[in-house]
């Protein structure tokens, strides 16, 4: 019972800062929108490459904006945790008799609520700018699922690094690693359009699978990556496995904090 | 005091600086004579630094005039700059540069000829004891080393007037002594020094004359010894239990004026001096007041300050003591 209540109060704290400190939440909303707009605008013509999965560039780059926003939003939890550790607030949390798991699940829940809000906003603006879901409600759900999944991954990774380094060095590693994982994937163009070294790397990068899941409801119905079990399962497995691994990493380093 | 001479190195007349409604400096008059160390004393926010910033051309006055080294600080700012040395609060120095490089830069800024630069820099490094550290980046210097380098920088052009803005704030006692010695030496060599400080002891030790500034006004000015004498009677400090505090106050008031003291302590300016202590003790005893602690203090600059402003200088007690 206390675990549930701890999770609740910690999640509330995380969400409350949106209202208390809207300026801090603003970049988290602006960045995904900005990324979606500039990628779709700059690489507008990329859909004309033969066999490109969609003929609307915003269909391709809206999920990218959301996924990058979700990933960075996730590691952002690590960032605020570093601040809590530095101010000593985190020691107060650790001294409380609540379960260690709730120290992770609570703030994570708060983060996921923010990601839900961000995703919804970007989808609305994306549709206003011409994005069209080809896969209906199921496609929209896949996009939400992948956003929450990658945010969970990011959060676990960010928390783990925060506990491990306890200072801003951790934040630098978070930013850089997420940046690399996101870009060394099918972020900009699909696998069969890219050539050379990137193709080799992106093929084994789990982010590619998760991005495919995010886009299943937005590519052309004739495309192999359109909503089907074949296109979806890889992303789901990646989300579940990577989330479990990263949360395990966070929990292990939280426990090590008292060593 | 030498108020007649307009050629004194620092003359301020009716100097004011208002920031909106805030009167940081409100019509002060000040003369610093040739060859003096002048101590400018006041708590944070009293207007000390504002005066220094005006006199060193960093800030314009909103009223009045000031002449430094014979030049008007507004109309002849450039000449003023050429004739003064300034060591600012916090010793603002670029941590990425070495001590020698900073001296070199300073030499160029003051237009010192290239062929004299090296010699001058080395002389100054020697003088402040930084020769060994000359080529190290300033980020590796200790607080004391930074202040010494700052002093060396301000001396690069052999200024006639030197401004030191809280030169020892935050220094350990040893570094503080070293810096004081150096200031005295410079003064013996003929440099006029204006020194701001929050430390009463520093002013007492170094300054020929001091001025106390409070809320933008100069409230006392003169030689430390004269000022102390002017406060007159020594202060008797007495601690009693809280319940008897008011009762004790009544008894003490008969022996002189009450003086501001730290919370929980009573202070009275004892008329007639030390020989009356016994009387006070008897009077308290008769009133059945239990004295926990008793101390007789000869007037200090702190008393001068308290007498002038009605409160004790914040941090005066916590200032590192040097003996």
């Amino acid at each position, binding site marked *: 019972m206390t675990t549930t209540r701890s999770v609740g109060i910690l999640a509330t704290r995380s969400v409350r800062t949106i209202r208390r400190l809207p300026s801090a939440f603003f970049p988290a909303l602006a960045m995904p929108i900005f990324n979606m707009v500039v990628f779709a605008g700059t690489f507008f013509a990329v859909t004309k490459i033969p066999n490109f999965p969609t003929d609307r560039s915003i269909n391709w780059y809206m999920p990218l904006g959301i996924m990058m926003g979700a990933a960075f939003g996730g590691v952002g939890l690590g960032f605020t945790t570093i601040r809590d550790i530095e101010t000593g607030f985190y020691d107060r949390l650790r001294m409380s008799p609540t379960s260690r798991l709730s120290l992770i699940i609570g703030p994570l829940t708060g983060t996921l609520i923010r990601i839900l809000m961000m995703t919804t906003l970007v989808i609305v603006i994306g549709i206003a700018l011409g994005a069209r879901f080809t896969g209906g409600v199921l496609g929209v759900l896949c996009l939400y699922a992948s956003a929450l999944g990658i945010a969970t991954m990011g959060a676990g990774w960010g928390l783990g690094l925060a506990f491990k380094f306890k200072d801003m060095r951790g934040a630098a590693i978070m930013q850089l690693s997420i940046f690399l994982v996101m870009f060394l994937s099918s972020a*900009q163009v699909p696998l069969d359009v890219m050539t050379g070294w990137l193709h080799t790397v992106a093929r084994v990068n789990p982010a590619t699978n998760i991005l495919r899941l995010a886009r299943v409801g937005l590519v052309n119905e004739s495309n192999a990556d359109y909503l089907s079990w074949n296109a979806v399962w890889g992303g789901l497995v990646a989300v579940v496995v990577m989330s479990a691994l990263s949360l395990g990493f966070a929990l292990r380093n939280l426990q090590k904090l008292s060593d | 005091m030498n108020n007649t001479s307009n050629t004194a190195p620092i003359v301020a007349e009716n100097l004011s600086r208002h920031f909106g409604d805030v009167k940081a400096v409100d019509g002060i008059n000040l003369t610093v004579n040739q060859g003096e160390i002048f101590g400018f004393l006041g708590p944070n926010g009293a207007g000390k630094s504002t005066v220094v910033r005006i006199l060193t051309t960093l800030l314009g006055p909103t009223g009045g005039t000031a002449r430094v080294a014979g030049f008007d600080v507004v109309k002849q700012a450039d000449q003023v700059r050429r004739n003064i040395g300034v060591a600012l609060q916090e010793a603002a120095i670029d941590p*990425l540069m070495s001590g020698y490089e900073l001296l070199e830069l300073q030499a160029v800024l003051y237009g*010192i000829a290239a062929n004299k630069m090296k010699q001058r820099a080395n002389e100054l490094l020697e003088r402040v004891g930084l020769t060994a550290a000359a080529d190290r980046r300033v980020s590796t210097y200790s607080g004391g080393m930074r202040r010494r380098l700052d002093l060396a920088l301000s001396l690069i052009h052999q200024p006639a007037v030197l401004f030191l803005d809280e030169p020892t704030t935050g220094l350990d006692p040893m570094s503080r002594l070293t810096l004081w010695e150096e200031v005295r030496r410079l003064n013996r060599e003929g440099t006029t020094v204006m020194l701001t400080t929050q430390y009463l002891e520093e002013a007492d030790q170094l300054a020929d004359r001091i001025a106390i500034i409070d809320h933008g006004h100069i409230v006392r000015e003169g030689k430390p010894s004269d000022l102390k004498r002017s406060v007159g009677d020594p202060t008797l400090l007495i601690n009693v239990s809280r319940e008897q505090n008011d009762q004790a106050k009544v008894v003490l008031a008969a022996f002189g004026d009450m003086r501001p003291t730290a919370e929980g302590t009573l202070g009275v300016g004892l008329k007639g001096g030390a020989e009356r202590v016994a009387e006070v003790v008897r009077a308290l005893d008769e009133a059945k007041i239990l004295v926990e602690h008793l101390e007789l203090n000869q007037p200090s600059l702190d008393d001068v300050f308290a007498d002038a402003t009605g409160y004790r200088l914040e941090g005066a007690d916590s200032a590192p003591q040097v003996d």
Partner: protein
Amino acid sequence: MPLVTASKGPIVRRRSTDTARQFVALSRRSTLAIFRQPALVAPSLIFPLFFAALGASSFSRAISLPGFPKVDSYLQFTLAGTVTQGVLFGSVTGAAALATDIEEGFFDRLLAAPTSRTSILFGRLAGSSVFGGLQALVFLLALLPFGVTVQAGVLGYVSIVLAGFLTAFGVGALMSVIALKTGSAEAVQGTFPILFILLFLSSAFFPRETMSGAYRRVADFNPISYMVEGQRSLSIDGISLTAMTQTLVIPIGIAVLTTLLALRQLSVRLAAR
């Protein structure tokens, strides 16, 4: 009473070369500062190269799309964009350092000395400008082994390096306006996203001819588009008056304009004292 004792006196004298010497000394300081903080400037060298490598693999099939100039590789196309991206991002350091000088009081030290007021500004910007030129050179050399050349030859290489220098100076001056206005290095760093937006809303990564709608119109208005296209033309087509003009005159124009703004802000800051 004599103002100073006979034994000593200010050994300062006025010379017309003073300002030049001060400028050189302050420039030297700001240039050394760049090289003494490699961690601060490394990202503006590494990230553009990372994006170039990423683009080379991602967009190798895009170069045959209508609207693209005839190039052998996307890398060849993106050379100018890489240079501009690096220089834009690097140019923030000089202005941020100026703000740090204000924050930490070094600016006051300079003001309390008889320093020429313009040397304080230009001396501080010199370091990041030199770095801008150097960045351009590094990018040109780094992409050389991948067959990316500048068709305009030596003059083309020199012009692009010069453009790097000028752009870093011009953007640095613009950022200095914020540094002088706020006196906060954080505020200067905070404007970084604006540069990011300006860069993306230009033809730095894809030709304007492939864009459409409002986005295209913004890129048409963005001076960065023309600057990049000038360098791109020098690299792909060879030397031409138009390309040279775009490569050099646009950054000069920007630099003149932003310098005026920065000088104005400097005098506002000095007058507010």
